């Protein structure tokens, strides 16, 4: 049997919200009064109802939602792309044309669904049916898929053949017009779900979750847990998008001068000019830091701590204030958290001796509740046993020492001393391209024949006309 992608109880996929919204819109299009105007499609002798033109769809969308032309066309495109509406004239071309090209609605069974992804078995049956109908004349990529499926689900291939034949026999029971619609529908569905090579996949189902041990008992215990979980989720802290967007904008504004891509970097972008001065000037240990770097420390406490030079400066300042043990404690806790598991007990022990035990040489000031909890936890040390204490000290530094550091003479002097690198002088002949050579890589060394070809190609790559270049 084919591996079932439908998971067991409790782990059901959800329908993507955008698809649910599209479905609602499609349903509202069916309204006899306010819905879309439908016409008949005439095929030689058969007449099939319920067809509409592209321009009908666009106009209906404009009227119903009071939107612009462009937006209506875009939404219409989404409908066709996701298979809720399919074109009748050029079925393989899944786009919406705002003219009199005919379209039709897709039946709910064939709607795009993240809850029910199409299975290989279904696709195999479809290809087998098509094979029968077209007497073996499948399109190239369909033939390949057919052969691949034949290998992959070979154990159930007899079923594929049986089912394909039976499905065709069943559809022969309907009248001609319906049969044509059925074929069109199915074809449209598979064009969307298994797009031909070269077209983009419409939907990403996400990784398949093959959790083997999710057979849950649907008993009182299970439901109690579910209720609890949902209650906690409801009480979750939520931020209005207006507020978080504001802070997002502020963040972008604050960091924009620091972004090498948005603002450019001085002296020059090493990737373009092959000049690594930028990296040298911003390395960990440097006599005079750049102005941007020092400014960055004032944005947030984390920025200061993450920069090794910043941390060193801060330590110097704390030493003057006789509260350096806080930072040392914090660093030691970080070491425990991110270090080797085998060394944790001894590290924690060290920390206790140095910082936490009564009468320790570098005793840190933690409130009694946290201290009690930490001491209790020290009996069974693990990676996160010092988390509470570390958090306490972190906030202490952040609220108290950090703002004072930013106002201190130490910081201000450093800021004044910090340099703004000069932009490298542009070459006198700006149209001279710098010789590009690929870095010596072991792979290239073994392919001397192709080297020349590669070098020639890389030399012809053009750089931005505005960037600095040197010979």
């Amino acid at each position: 049997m084919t591996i079932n992608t439908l998971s067991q109880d409790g782990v059901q996929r959800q329908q993507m919200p955008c698809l649910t919204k599209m479905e609602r819109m499609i349903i509202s299009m069916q309204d006899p009064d306010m819905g879309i105007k439908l016409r008949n499609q005439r095929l030689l002798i058969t007449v099939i109802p319920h067809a509409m033109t592209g321009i009908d769809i666009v106009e209906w969308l404009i009227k119903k939602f009071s939107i612009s032309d462009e937006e209506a066309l875009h939404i219409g495109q989404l409908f066709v792309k996701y298979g809720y509406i399919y074109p009748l004239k050029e079925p393989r071309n899944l786009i919406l044309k705002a003219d009199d090209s005919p379209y039709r609605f897709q039946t709910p069974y064939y709607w795009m669904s993240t809850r029910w992804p199409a299975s290989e078995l279904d696709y195999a049956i479809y290809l087998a049916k098509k094979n029968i109908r077209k007497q073996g004349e499948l399109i190239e990529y369909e033939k390949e898929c057919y052969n691949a499926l034949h290998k992959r689900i070979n154990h159930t291939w007899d079923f594929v053949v049986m089912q394909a034949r039976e499905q065709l026999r069943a559809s022969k029971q309907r009248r001609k017009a319906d049969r044509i619609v059925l074929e069109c529908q199915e074809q449209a569905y598979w064009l969307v779900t298994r797009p031909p090579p070269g077209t983009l996949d419409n939907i990403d189902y996400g990784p398949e979750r093959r959790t083997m041990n999710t057979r849950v008992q649907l008993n009182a215990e299970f439901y109690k847990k579910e209720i609890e979980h949902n209650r906690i989720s409801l009480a979750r802290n939520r931020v209005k998008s207006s507020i978080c967007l504001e802070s997002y904008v502020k963040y972008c504004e604050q960091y924009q001068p620091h972004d090498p891509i948005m603002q450019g970097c001085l002296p020059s972008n090493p990737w373009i000019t092959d000049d690594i001065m930028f990296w040298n000037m911003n390395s960990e240990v440097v006599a005079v830091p750049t102005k941007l770097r020092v400014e960055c420390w004032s944005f947030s406490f984390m920025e200061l701590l993450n920069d090794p030079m910043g941390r060193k400066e801060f330590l110097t300042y704390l030493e003057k204030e006789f509260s350096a043990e806080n930072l040392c404690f914090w660093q030691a806790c970080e070491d425990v958290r991110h270090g080797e598991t085998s060394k944790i007990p001894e590290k924690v022990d060290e920390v206790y001796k140095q910082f936490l035990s009564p009468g320790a040489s570098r005793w840190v000031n933690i409130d009694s509740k946290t201290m009690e909890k930490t001491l209790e936890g020290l009996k069974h040390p693990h990676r996160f046993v010092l988390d509470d204490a570390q958090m306490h000290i972190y906030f202490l530094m952040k609220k108290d020492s950090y703002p004072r550091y930013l106002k201190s003479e130490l910081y201000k002097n450093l800021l004044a001393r910090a340099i703004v690198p000069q932009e490298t002088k542009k070459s006198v002949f700006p149209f001279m391209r710098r010789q590009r050579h690929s870095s010596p890589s072991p792979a290239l060394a073994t392919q001397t024949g192709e080297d020349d070809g590669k070098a020639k190609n890389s030399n012809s790559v053009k750089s931005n006309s505005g960037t600095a270049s040197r010979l």
Partner: protein
Amino acid sequence: MGKDECKTMLDALNKVTACYRHLVIALGSTSDSQNLREELKKTRKKAQELAVANRTKLTTLLKDKSISKDDRAEYERLWVLFTSSMELLEVDMKRSLEIGQDFPLKVPTRHLIQTGMTGSTTTVAARAMSVQNMKYEADASIDTVDLKELETEIAQVDQMMEEMEMKVQVAPWAVEAKQEAGAELKSTVSVGNSSVGVISICEEEPKETVEGETGLMKVQ
């Protein structure tokens, strides 16, 4: 012989599965109607009867230790066919529940999707039930009442499939299909013994394909 009986039953199940799928495709569209809901219900019940019968037969055969190796291979193949059929049925039942819930029939403004299909599905259902004509006797609230039954039936099918997985140890990768690729293009002799009592419309298929048709549009 056990094998022939099995094959006939499997064919019957296969036929009903195909018809059921066909009916579910019509759900929610303009082909939907009270009759369709009743057809779905009847077909579903028939499918379940056949499923249970198939399962009992096959499990007894597979449990028998005294059968030959060839026989065993054949029964395993039939078992795989049976489970594939059940898979399709299970999915279709779940989907019919979902779509049935989304498109109730007895509401003031019906919003069935206008898919271009307007004919009835009676003949398909008749084929599934192996009868000449379908009789409709359900009352108007079938679209909601039936859904509850459907839920319980889905739970039953789930349970049955779980049991099947546990009790019968058949390795799917060890089974080889009898048909090679492209076998469906040959004569329509099916794998088992196909049941003959069906109605078929002997309309000739026109040669032209549907894609690339230039449809003349007429305003309704």
